[in-house]
Each structure stands twice: as C-alpha cells, then as structure tokens.
C-alpha cells in the first residue's frame, strides 16, 4: 500500500495545478504543502436522523495540522481587528487569546509551534477566510476523524480510542507542539488527543444531549427532524465531541479548543 501522505501529496499537486488553471487563470499554483486532499465518500455517522442513515462527503482538502500560535500571530498582525484588545465582544469572549503576552506577542505561555487555542469560532473562521479557506463542516471533520493510521474508516480503532481516552484523563497537560503525533490514513496529524477543533456548523441542530431538558415540561426546542434522530451512545469518543460542540457558543474561547482550515477542490480531482 502506498503511504497515505505520499499518495495525497501527489493528488494535491494535480489538484493545485488543475485549480490554478481553472480558478486562477494563468497564475502559478500557490504552494500549499500543508493541505491534504481527502477523497469523497460516505459513512454512517454517530448521529443519525430517521431515514438518513448515511452521510455523503464530497472530496475536499484539509490542513494537515491544527493552526499554530505562530500562524495565528501573523494573522492578527495583518488583521488588527482580531487582536485581543480590539476584537468585538460579539465575536470573542474576554478570554480570547488570554494566554498570549500581548496583542501581537506570544510570550512565555504560548510557544510558536503549539496549536492556537482560546480562539472563538468567529476568529477561527476569519483566519481561514484570510487564507482563502474555510472551516471544515462537522460532517467533513467527523469523516476524517474515523481514520486510523492504516484505514480511512476505523472509528473504533482500539489504539486511537485508547489514546483519546488517555487524553481525556490527563489532568491539565500542557499542549504539545502540532505534528508530534503520527499522521492518520489521510496524512492528518493531531485530529485526536491534542485539542478540540471548531467546525463551521458546530451549532447544527443535531442534538445528542440536552442539559436544558429539565427546564420544564413541554418546551419544544427544535423544529423538524432534530428530535427524531438516534445517537450511537456506545461510541463514547464521538459522543464527547458532539456533546462538547453543542455546549459552545460562537464567541466562546476554551483552553484546549483550536481549529484547522479546509478548502474546496473542484470535482474530479
């Protein structure tokens, strides 16, 4: 079997050449060595609506690693509206980048190669847009998170699960640098056991848990199919991800919540 990383960088090169020809006219392809091309596919998600047992994901590209402090620093230098003391409260809470030394300075508590954390969804999204990218959707993120080192679809791979459970239980571990863990089948590092990651539709209405259920009888919180679904409660690690996302608001920042960016690729690539 061809190692996943080499396979995907070959594909990536052709993807970039093709998209440069179609989307950007005659301009030279932008170097994007940190993106991995993800083949489209279908999977049976953790959370299933009645009559919609499978989710289809189209081919896309995804950052191989979470965004680092260093990259986010470059972003806030170029976009001062996203600096700690300038950001609007509507878009980031008071803990936004609180571990940095200053508006445009990392300091001793934020190494350049650590994943950036304490960033809101709005800030993560703005970062990706500034790179011509976007946040991955929940379906895309969950699709690649099913991969083990050798298989694209091994959501209950014992080694991965053990690593994630160990991470849950590690009290206040300091964040490792990005890329320290072995890549999965797609050539992606650190999907698990480093930071949680924002997705574009973290606030989808696919509800696996509802801490406000006990507020009173008869409060219909959702319209449509949300309440007709079923979650695979045996899949503990997926459950934790969905439950975590649903507890977030867009302006929240969390000590071990970061992100990575995705990009569209033209069909057929």
């Amino acid at each position, binding site marked *: 079997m061809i190692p996943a990383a080499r396979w995907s960088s070959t594909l990536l090169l052709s993807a970039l050449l093709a998209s440069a020809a179609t989307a950007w006219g005659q301009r030279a392809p932008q170097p994007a060595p940190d993106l991995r091309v993800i083949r489209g596919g279908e999977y049976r998600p953790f959370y299933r*609506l009645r009559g*919609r047992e499978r989710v289809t994901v189209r081919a896309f590209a995804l950052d191989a690693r979470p965004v680092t402090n260093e990259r986010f620093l470059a972003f806030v230098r170029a976009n001062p509206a996203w600096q700690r003391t300038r950001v*609007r*409260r*509507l878009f980031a809470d008071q803990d936004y980048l609180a571990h940095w030394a200053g508006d445009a300075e990392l300091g001793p508590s934020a190494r350049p190669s650590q994943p950036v954390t304490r960033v809101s*969804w*709005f800030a993560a999204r703005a970062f990706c847009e500034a790179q011509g990218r976007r946040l991955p959707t929940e379906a895309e993120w969950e699709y690649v998170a099913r991969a083990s080192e050798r298989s694209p679809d091994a959501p209950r791979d014992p080694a991965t699960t053990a690593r994630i459970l160990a*991470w*849950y*239980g*590690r*009290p*206040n*571990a300091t964040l490792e640098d990005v890329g320290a863990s072995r890549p999965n089948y797609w050539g992606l590092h650190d999907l698990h056991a480093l930071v*949680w990651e924002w997705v*574009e*539709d973290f*606030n*989808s*209405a*696919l*509800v*696996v*848990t*509802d*801490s*406000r*259920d006990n507020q009173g009888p*008869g*409060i*219909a*919180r*959702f*319209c*449509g*199919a*949300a309440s007709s679904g*079923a*979650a695979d*409660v045996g899949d*503990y690690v997926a*459950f*934790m991800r969905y*439950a*975590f996302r*649903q*507890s*977030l*608001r*867009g302006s*929240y920042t*969390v*000590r*071990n*919540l970061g992100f990575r960016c995705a990009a569209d690729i033209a069909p057929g690539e």
Partner: protein
Amino acid sequence: MRSMTLGLLALTLASACGRNTPRPAARADAPPCHCSHDASAPMAANQPLPDTSVFQMGVPWTDQSGRAFDLASLAGSPTVVLMFYGTCQSTCPLLVRDVKRVEAALSPAARARTRFLLVTFDPSTDTPERLSALAAEDHLDLSRWTLLRGADHDIRTFATVLGVQFSRVGPGEYTHSNLITLLDPQGVVATQLEGLQQPVEEFARRIEGYTR
C-alpha cells in the same frame, strides 16, 4: 433516549472534571448577552453602537422586495427576530404566530416603533417573490415587518450570533431551534423566547420600556 444521553453526559462530565475535557457547560446557561440596556431611553441616532450589537455585523441582506437591507438601519428600534424558512411544515408557522402575538400585545405607540424581522434559513427557495407572498399570506404589515434572505455563509453567522442552532437535513428541509429574539434599540440581545406558544408578556414589557 434523551434521558439516557443526559445521564451519560452527566457521567462523562463528572468523570472529566479538571481533566482535558474543556468545561464550557457551566457557561452554557449564562445569559447570551451583556443585558445592561434594559429599559434604557431610546438611543440618539448618532450614538456609536455597543461592542455586542448585532446591528453592526455588516452583512449584506436582501429584503422581500429584493432591495439591499442593512441591519444598522434598525438602530433606535427594538427588533423582534425569528429565523425560519418558508416551506417549513413543522413549527415555523407557529413561531410566526408567536411573533404576531408579541405584536398584538403592544400598545399602538410601541407597536409603531418596533420592527419584526423574519430571516430565512433557505435563501434558494425563499426568493424575494416567495418572501413577499408569505408576507401577504400572513397579513404582515410591511411598515413594521421585514423578511430577509442572505448568503448561506451569512445566515450561519447570524444564527451563531443569536445562538440559533440549525442544519440543512435535505433539499428544502431544515431542523432548527425554536427561538425568538428581542434586540434592544442598540441591537444587543435583550431576551429570548425558547419553545412554542410561550408567554409574551416579558417581551412586551421590555419593548414598552424602550419606546416609552
């Protein structure tokens, strides 16, 4: 099902306390806003909007007549906001009725100064023509009501600012929070109604305060 997952979550969060699982749950019930503008006097037209104002999002919207609509034009008016979609067969019609209950609960003076916004989840189906037709079917007074559509990206932004959860589950079909929001005259989230056929007195009381 629900109680089962709830129990499991309680268990997982309890066992995860202080560990590597972040704990935003304690904040999930915090008020969605800095609600310090309750019953304040109407703002001066040129006063800068607060940091938490939804009116300053700068997102391009289009109204039911196809014209560009800037949320900043709402500054000075308390605004009731509902996100919905026109082909919804489930709770959206009931939610529109709830917003109309708010409208009906107001004094004529307060009603005249309040704006009602319906923002669609489904811009591809809810064209300006469709939105106009919906307004006519529901007898919405377009001097107070505005029906808006925007790009999918901006709809997600707007929903996130309001704390509305939604997903597209199929062509022309969405699942979403049943949530009606009151924005104060500066565009800051003042209070929300969650669920269906909830009491509207609190909305009415606050709106009367803003417009007194």
